[in-house]
């Protein structure tokens, strides 16, 4: 097809209002898909931010462990047994549990998640932990997650001014000495990181013989897979032994299956796709119907069916690209709003942009293909 006339383009742009309506439909669909996928991705990211930043070779958790949001504890004896295994260099503990945070300004009480670890051992690579290791050694100190929701008082401002921030955690006076950066999630409004000793101080009910996530570092040059197999063999049903990557997948699987969020947002994306498909289909179908006598004329002139088919599909593709661009820009604007409102970091990625471009083109392509069904009723003998 030589397409010197840009017929598809002219047909689309001849009636401006119709074009605007069609583009609005594609834009809404694109935006919806961006938002749904964005929230889903950031939920998954927020739920696994600690997992992703573990600097351990293997992770040991209780067989009852499902999610870091609701931890099950494991006896430290398991960890000591792991340390005795050949190839294991060292072990570490990660303690996780919520405390009650009393906002010193409003007096309001909020729950916040606490991560306790030995800060100088480098098990979790989050901003500030090794930098503030010495301060965290002191009693009743912690790092505050700057990406916590804005309900905990002016912590970030105080620390950025260089002032310590005093707050009551589980009725114990504590002091924020620095900031780290994690993420609020659907499960937690905020996080803080402290030493193992301080965790035990704020969680008096927690037995020091219990650990939530056991961490294993292997000797250099050792095969992690075979040590994992050996540990699994040793513990049997007593513990789960995973690599950090497997541990991340494990957490994600919980959110994807046990919690409906994954399903909800995937459905939301599908609904966006469907809306776009229906809008574009309606527009193209109405357009083909409206132009039926002209298509019949073109058939009589000797234009092959595929030429007209491509003409309709081409219109769909133009709509997809034209709608995708403003729809994406709008979605990125909405990301800022969501991030501001929820403190859940939602950002566009090139990967998602590419995926959605493909999805949008597919959406408009399918609409075009279905709309061309109507072309069959263009009978060239009818034009006489």
């Amino acid at each position, binding site marked *: 097809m*030589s*397409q010197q*006339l840009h017929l598809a383009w002219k047909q689309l*742009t001849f009636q401006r209002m119709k074009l605007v309506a069609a583009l609005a439909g594609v834009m809404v669909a694109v935006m919806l898909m961006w938002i749904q996928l964005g929230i889903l991705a950031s939920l998954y990211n927020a739920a696994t931010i600690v997992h992703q930043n573990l600097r351990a070779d293997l992770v040991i958790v209780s067989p009852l462990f499902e999610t870091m949001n609701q931890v099950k504890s494991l006896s430290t004896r398991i960890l000591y047994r792991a340390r005795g295994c050949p190839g294991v260099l060292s072990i570490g503990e990660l303690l996780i549990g919520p405390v009650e945070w009393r906002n010193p300004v409003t007096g309001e009480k909020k729950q916040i998640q606490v991560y306790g670890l030995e800060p100088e051992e480098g098990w979790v690579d989050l901003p500030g932990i090794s930098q503030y290791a010495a301060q965290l050694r002191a009693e009743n100190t912690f790092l505050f997650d700057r990406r916590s929701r804005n309900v905990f008082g002016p912590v970030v401002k105080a620390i950025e001014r260089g002032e310590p921030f005093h707050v009551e955690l589980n009725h114990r006076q504590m002091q924020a000495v620095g900031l780290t950066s994690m993420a609020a999630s659907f499960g937690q409004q905020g996080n803080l990181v402290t030493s193992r000793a301080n965790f035990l101080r704020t969680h008096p009910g927690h037995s020091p013989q219990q650990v939530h996530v056991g961490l294993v570092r292997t000797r250099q040059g050792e095969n992690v897979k075979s040590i994992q197999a050996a540990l699994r063999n040793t513990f049997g049903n007593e513990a789960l032994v995973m690599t950090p990557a497997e541990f991340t997948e494990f957490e994600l699987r919980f959110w994807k299956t046990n919690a409906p969020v994954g399903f909800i947002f995937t459905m939301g994306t599908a609904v966006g796709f469907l809306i776009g498909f229906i809008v574009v289909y309606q527009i193209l179908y109405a357009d083909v119907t409206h132009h039926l006598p002209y298509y019949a004329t073109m058939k*009589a*002139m*000797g*234009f092959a069916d595929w030429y007209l088919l491509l003409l309709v599909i081409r219109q769909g593709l133009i709509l997809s690209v034209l709608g995708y661009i403003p729809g994406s820009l709008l979605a990125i604007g909405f990301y800022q709003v969501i991030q501001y409102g929820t403190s859940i970091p939602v950002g566009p990625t090139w990967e998602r942009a590419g995926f959605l471009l493909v999805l949008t083109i597919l959406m408009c392509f399918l609409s075009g293909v279905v709309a061309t069904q109507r072309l069959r009723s263009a009978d060239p*003998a009818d034009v*006489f």
Partner: protein
Amino acid sequence: MTTSSQPDHYNVVVEARHINFWFGEGDLRKQILFDVNLRINPGEVVLLTGQSGSGKTTLLTLIGALRTLTSGSLIVLGQELLQATRRQQVSVRKQIGFIFQAHNLIPHLTALENVQLALELYPDVSAAEGRQRAADLLVAVGLEHRMHAFPAKLSGGQKQRVAIARAMVNRPRLVLADEPTSALDGRTGREVLERLVLLARDYHVPILMVSHDPRIVDLADRNIDMEDGSILPDSSAMFSAAELATEKALVATSRP
């Protein structure tokens, strides 16, 4: 009675033999054409007349490869259309210039672009050449000042002249026109047809035109009259005017 000369197949534009045609299926099957025989020779302007319902438009759509022939034989531009494939039909259509009752111009293309559209069928015609050819034809039909107007801004006669230019731009080997003047008043209609016939004679393109307008009979070389799906016996359906004269002379001399 003997025919004076056997037709040379390469020169005959349309040769129809014993065409019968039905619409509908089963009990609703209705015969539209009855044993139609017809020939069109190169360069001829043939007028097809008859009451509405006489089957003339159906015959035109069969010749234009817009309908599928089921009985008889119909050779158009060297292609047998009986049991022709879709691809063969499309290939015949590409060599024919159609002019419709309604002009059927594409509303979102200008006059010039509407004429150029027909050239989209030939990707090897360059944009510049196509534009030139389209513009030349619009000049030939007297629309040099309206080339960039959209159809909505053109009068009925102007639109039909664009349609003529569109039909001629691909240098067709046959022009089929169906009541091209029915939407126009008498004077405009005749003007438009004069232009069409003039162009066709210039290009040496044969025309088969369906019309019931008696005022244009003088523009045609021959007149074929149809009634109830048959060609009337006195119509010169099979022969050119010249052949017909020879035939009459032969018949006259053979009489005692």
